[in-house]
């Protein structure tokens, strides 16, 4: 079920009134929310909804077992099994094809040629590939698997207690606003909210929720869809058709598109959760205003970068064990972060590029005697230069991220050198839409707090009327139909 659709609007209206209407019946209310979340997910595939529920039950079972076990060795075995089981499910659905076709077979080809068993290899491929092609990637599996992993690991580390009941935990894991594309909300933040649902005495920040939902719909339906259709998709589909100006435009368009698309999902998710009385942390904080790449990762997909920091980078040793080890840890973290996004060499390269650049950036700052973190207020000139530079660095990485394969990456890079060809994509509308998309970053974080507070002070019927008119205008200005969110594929 996609957010910007009639089906979701009707679904959410029913869930909203049921959720608040059932306040006197707390247990029924929890079951209703779980039913709604599973319906939301099962609308696409009931089999995967069942798998999600089973994953929730098993992870909670493991967490309870870990909590009740006194012996450290048994606890270690249990957490190892829980982590391995989660990663195995993710690997089967997401990486089987990559591991077999892109890694194992290319490695086996020279070996089989030497042993004279090439025919057997071809036969094996013919048997295995049809089976692999049948594997369908469940939407959002990367997100909820990471949530489940953070829960069992936090319980093991005694950072958070196990959920009071399986129902609370499955509600946390399957909560529909953030189920398929995040934010990856930690158990410590959301589980206590799932244990005791907000009652009628709660106050709902309708101003903030409306701004987030409408802003998100505008970013997705108007900006991201337009940029994809008119600039990014054509350039990445046929890079050989375009010269340098169009290629640059296409890459910039993709940078703004992915920001508008993904941050839109997070905003709508946060807004919907707010209307149900739940609070999520923010996931984007004006990422293209970052002065360093390190800062970019503190502002982009914050819930994933903090997850990778807490459950991968720091356990590997973080920056505590010397310069070389720190660089290695950064590289491993970002390569795995790249693989989390997709099973392909382009994603591995994307992660490697970020890891290597971050290592070089740390080294350069140390050599120049600069602090590791940029100061809160950088002089304006340096800040502008830094922002422009980091935007180019990130855009270059988006080429690896967006291209279907290495041949497409080559095509884009060749296009960037072709300054002789006239532009066919450049137009005033393109610049305007790109500019508006870029400026939408001013809506991130708590910057529009004054707007939310002002909206909250309006009479309720005015709030509702203005929101309905704005939604109608967004739907009218946007194209017919809506493409799925980019992060659904991860």
């Amino acid at each position, binding site marked *: 079920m996609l957010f910007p659709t009639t089906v979701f*609007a009707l679904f959410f209206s029913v869930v909203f*009134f049921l959720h*608040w209407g059932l306040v006197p019946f707390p247990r029924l209310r929890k079951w209703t929310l779980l039913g709604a979340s599973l319906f939301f997910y099962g609308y696409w595939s009931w089999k995967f909804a069942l798998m999600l529920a089973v994953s929730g039950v098993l992870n909670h079972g493991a967490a309870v077992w870990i909590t009740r076990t006194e012996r450290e060795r048994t606890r270690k075995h249990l957490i190892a099994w829980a982590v391995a089981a989660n990663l195995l499910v993710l690997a089967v659905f997401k990486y089987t094809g990559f591991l077999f076709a892109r890694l194992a077979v290319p490695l086996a080809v020279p070996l089989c040629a030497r042993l004279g068993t090439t025919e057997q290899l071809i036969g094996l491929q013919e048997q295995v590939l049809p089976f692999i092609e049948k594997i369908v990637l469940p939407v959002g599996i990367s997100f909820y698997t990471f949530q489940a992993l953070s829960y069992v690991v936090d319980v093991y580390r005694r950072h958070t207690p196990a959920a009071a009941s399986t129902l609370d935990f499955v509600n946390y894991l399957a909560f529909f606003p953030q189920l398929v594309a995040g934010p990856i909300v930690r158990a410590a933040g959301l589980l206590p909210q799932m244990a005791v649902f907000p009652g009628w005495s709660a106050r*709902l920040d*309708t101003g*903030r929720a409306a701004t987030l939902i409408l802003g998100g719909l505008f970013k997705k339906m108007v900006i991201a869809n337009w940029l994809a259709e008119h600039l990014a998709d054509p350039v990445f589909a046929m890079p050989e058709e375009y010269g340098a100006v169009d290629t640059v435009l296409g890459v910039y368009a993709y940078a703004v598109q992915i920001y508008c698309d993904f941050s839109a999902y997070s905003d709508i998710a946060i807004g919907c959760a707010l209307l149900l009385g739940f609070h999520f942390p923010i996931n984007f904080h004006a990422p293209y205003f970052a*002065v360093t790449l390190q800062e970019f990762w503190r502002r982009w997909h914050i819930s994933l970068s903090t997850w990778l920091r807490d459950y991968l980078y720091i356990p590997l040793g973080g920056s505590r064990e010397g310069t070389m080890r720190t660089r290695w840890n950064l590289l491993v973290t970002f390569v795995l972060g790249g693989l989390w996004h997709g099973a392909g060499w382009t994603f591995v390269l994307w992660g490697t590029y970020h890891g290597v650049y971050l290592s070089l950036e740390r080294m350069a700052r140390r050599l120049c005697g600069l602090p590791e973190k940029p100061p809160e207020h950088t002089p304006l000139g340096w800040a502008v230069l830094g922002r422009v530079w980091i935007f180019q660095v990130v855009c270059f990485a988006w080429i690896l991220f967006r291209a279907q394969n290495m041949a497409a990456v080559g095509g884009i890079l060749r296009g960037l050198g072709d300054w002789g060809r006239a532009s066919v994509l450049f137009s005033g509308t393109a610049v305007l839409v790109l500019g508006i998309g870029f400026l939408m970053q001013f809506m991130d974080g708590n910057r529009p707090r004054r707007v939310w507070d002002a909206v909250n002070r309006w009479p309720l*019927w005015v709030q509702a009327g203005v929101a309905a008119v704005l939604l109608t*205008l967004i*739907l009218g200005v946007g194209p017919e139909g809506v493409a799925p969110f980019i992060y659904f594929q991860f």
Partner: protein
Amino acid sequence: MSDTRDKTGGTPAGTGVPVRQACFCVGVFFVLMLLFNGVAMYKSAKLLEYGRVRDLWLKVLHPVEQVSRLSGLFYVRQAAQDTVGKSLNHASVKKGGKE
């Protein structure tokens, strides 16, 4: 511009509206949304693949479409579609043959 404080995005105490009022607000919003978009929703339901789902949607949305048309509120969306929407979504690209 580089303010990275307060990343929780939580609601400060005392802000927002009481739940009952919020329910009223959301209810009014949904009614208005249906009035503004009833005709367009019915039209897009017509584009669905023939079958039970399409029939169900058409049955559900028919009264909504009627009220939306009678109230005249559907003009808001139609005006947005015919002006900005049309020029934005159907703007042809210069030579290169892509629409």
